[in-house]
């Protein structure tokens, strides 16, 4: 039985506290520097902002087709700006609108920074909750010895979920402007903020339905994690096979529930930030990212437990399988990333392609760094069989994947909320430390609550003798 030592506990709490302090300091500094938003006036003209398909399209043609047409570039820009000011959007004078918009983007940064970290850490738990369900549905035997770690990880979804819900609901109070569709009067014809495209999505993106959906996710996921844990603990005392059967039913129901909610939650929590944009496979793309990063976390947790002298029944064969899953799903993630990208790039439809243009132009470094961290490096690190059986290479790949998927979520969320006012400082590091501390605390304390191994799991022998 694992003991959550006081020292580790203190470390986890210290991380959380330091994280909060860093964020608060960052918040104060961010607020004080936001009045020099003057520089934003000049840079804003360069910004290819989501809502201006014409401008974006022109820029796309230039940037990809003729690199040395910079002279034309400006001409195009002026032109599309003129066109744009004629639209109902510019009820304010254009200058004021830009200044306000820039101020909003700067003010969004602290919230977006928490949000990115919250989504990332939600993925670490949610992926393992789904994987835990899969173990029962697929009647997997090899994993019986590490189910307790997956159960512990599933509980880690609670805190990120609460934080996400709070931030999302703060949007209704206009504390921040991360979600463009939450702007007042955006769906009311004739209102100064009216946006026909967003008004058309009102049936789905309205405060009441949104709130209901968020609550459904929280209740459904947390409930599934609790039930799976409950019967797993009961099986230690009683009939392992009967409890396994119960869990199998729960897992089957949860898998169906998650199949739907993994997509809808990705639309709600992430895709709705870029409200005008849409992608049909965004849900799977987000899911794949969450799933692969949760394997990285599970590998690190398993190896930590082994390093502490526990779980002697887990050997390089189990590690090999976990490594295979991480490898496979980082390739799967890349496949979905590319499938989403290449169709949009090829079709070059303005309302779709603006999403990638902004990322190519403003987020070039994080965008390409995360692609190589999430695909090329893990593939090269754990492609061969021996590499998946040694903890060194697997840990290295797991760290690539974790860093890469933080950046992936960063690149998904930041462009739509802060535009080009992004950075990586106290505001971003704070939430990462905060959630890391809480994650360690929640996971290790629930690992410590129960024996590390099921007593009566029907497929325990298979897991113990697992080899390949």
């Amino acid at each position, binding site marked *: 039985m694992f003991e959550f030592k006081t020292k580790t506990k203190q470390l986890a709490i210290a991380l959380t506290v330091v994280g909060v302090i860093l964020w608060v300091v960052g918040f104060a500094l961010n607020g004080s520097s936001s009045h020099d938003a003057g520089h934003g006036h000049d840079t804003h003209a360069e910004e290819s902002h989501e809502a201006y398909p014409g401008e974006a399209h022109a820029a796309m043609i230039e940037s990809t087709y003729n690199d040395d047409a910079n002279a034309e570039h400006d001409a195009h820009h002026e032109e599309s700006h003129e066109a744009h000011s004629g639209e109902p959007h510019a009820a304010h004078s254009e200058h004021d609108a830009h200044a306000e918009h820039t101020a909003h983007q700067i003010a969004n940064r602290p919230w977006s920074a928490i949000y990115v970290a919250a989504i990332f850490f939600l993925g670490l738990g949610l992926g393992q909750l789904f994987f835990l369900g899969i173990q029962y549905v697929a009647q997997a035997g090899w994993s019986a010895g590490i189910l307790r770690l997956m159960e512990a990880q599933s509980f880690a979804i609670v805190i990120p979920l609460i934080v996400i819900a709070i931030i999302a609901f703060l949007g209704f109070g206009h504390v921040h402007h991360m979600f463009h569709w939450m702007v007042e009067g955006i769906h009311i014809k004739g209102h100064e903020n009216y946006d026909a495209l967003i008004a058309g999505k009102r049936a789905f993106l309205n405060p009441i339905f949104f709130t209901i959906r968020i609550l459904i996710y929280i209740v459904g996921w947390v409930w599934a994690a609790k039930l799976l844990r409950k019967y797993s603990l009961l099986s230690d005392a009683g009939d392992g096979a009967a409890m396994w059967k119960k869990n199998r039913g729960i897992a089957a129901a949860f898998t169906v529930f998650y199949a739907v909610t993994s997509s809808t939650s990705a639309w709600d929590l992430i895709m709705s930030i870029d409200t005008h944009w849409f992608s049909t496979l965004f849900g799977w793309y987000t899911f794949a990212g969450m799933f692969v990063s949760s394997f990285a976390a599970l590998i690190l947790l398993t190896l930590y437990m082994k390093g502490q002298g526990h779980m002697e029944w887990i050997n390089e064969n189990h590690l090999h399988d976990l490594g295979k899953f991480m490898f496979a799903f980082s390739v799967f993630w890349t496949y979905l990333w*590319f499938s989403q990208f*290449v169709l949009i790039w*090829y079709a070059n439809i303005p309302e779709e392609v603006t999403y990638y243009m902004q990322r190519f132009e403003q987020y070039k470094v994080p965008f390409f760094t995360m692609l190589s961290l999430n695909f090329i490096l893990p593939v090269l690190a754990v492609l061969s069989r021996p590499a998946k059986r040694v903890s060194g290479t697997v840990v290295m790949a797991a760290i690539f994947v974790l860093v890469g998927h933080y950046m992936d979520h960063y690149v998904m969320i930041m462009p739509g909320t802060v535009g080009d006012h992004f950075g990586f400082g106290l505001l971003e590091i704070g939430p990462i430390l905060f959630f890391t501390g809480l994650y360690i605390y929640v996971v290790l304390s629930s690992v410590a609550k129960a024996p590390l191994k099921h007593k009566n799991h029907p497929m325990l022998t298979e897991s113990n003798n697992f080899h390949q």
Partner: protein
Amino acid sequence: MGHTKHNTIVRALFNDDDVVLDAVKDLRSSGYHVSEVYSPFPIHGLDEAMGLDRTRLSTAAFFYGLAGLFFASWLTYYTMTADWPQNIGGKPNAYWFLNMPSFVPVMFELTVFFAAHLMCWSYFAVNKLYPGAKAQNPDPRTTDDHFLMEVELEGEETDLTKKLQELGALEISKVEA
């Protein structure tokens, strides 16, 4: 996988894969060299028990895949950019790299194609399998429900025969190799 040493081979026939696996382990631990096992299906763990080297086919596959990737890059470069620049959907055709995303499916497929086909042929070549090749298994029953083991004879023949019988061999024969 043949053996080149000129010595006497003892063949033992079994009818259960678990028995064969245990017999191989037993014989090797008592110093015999099991040169070959014929089986109608792969026996999990047998390669390890026989002390065979790990296959290098996977390393070869990596380089075959790489070759496919380079071939596809060259193919798309030559046909789409260099020889006769193709303008499809207004995509840039002056540089291969600018239009690279649309070639990714080709690059992926040819990587898989090269890896799979060359791996398959390598496997055939290494195992001397080709059209018209003569069957190498000494007993046709090993393609049905029997397992045949070849052990190099060392020491007294009767010792080995006795041991094999104890280990569950159904038939034992001797050949000069």
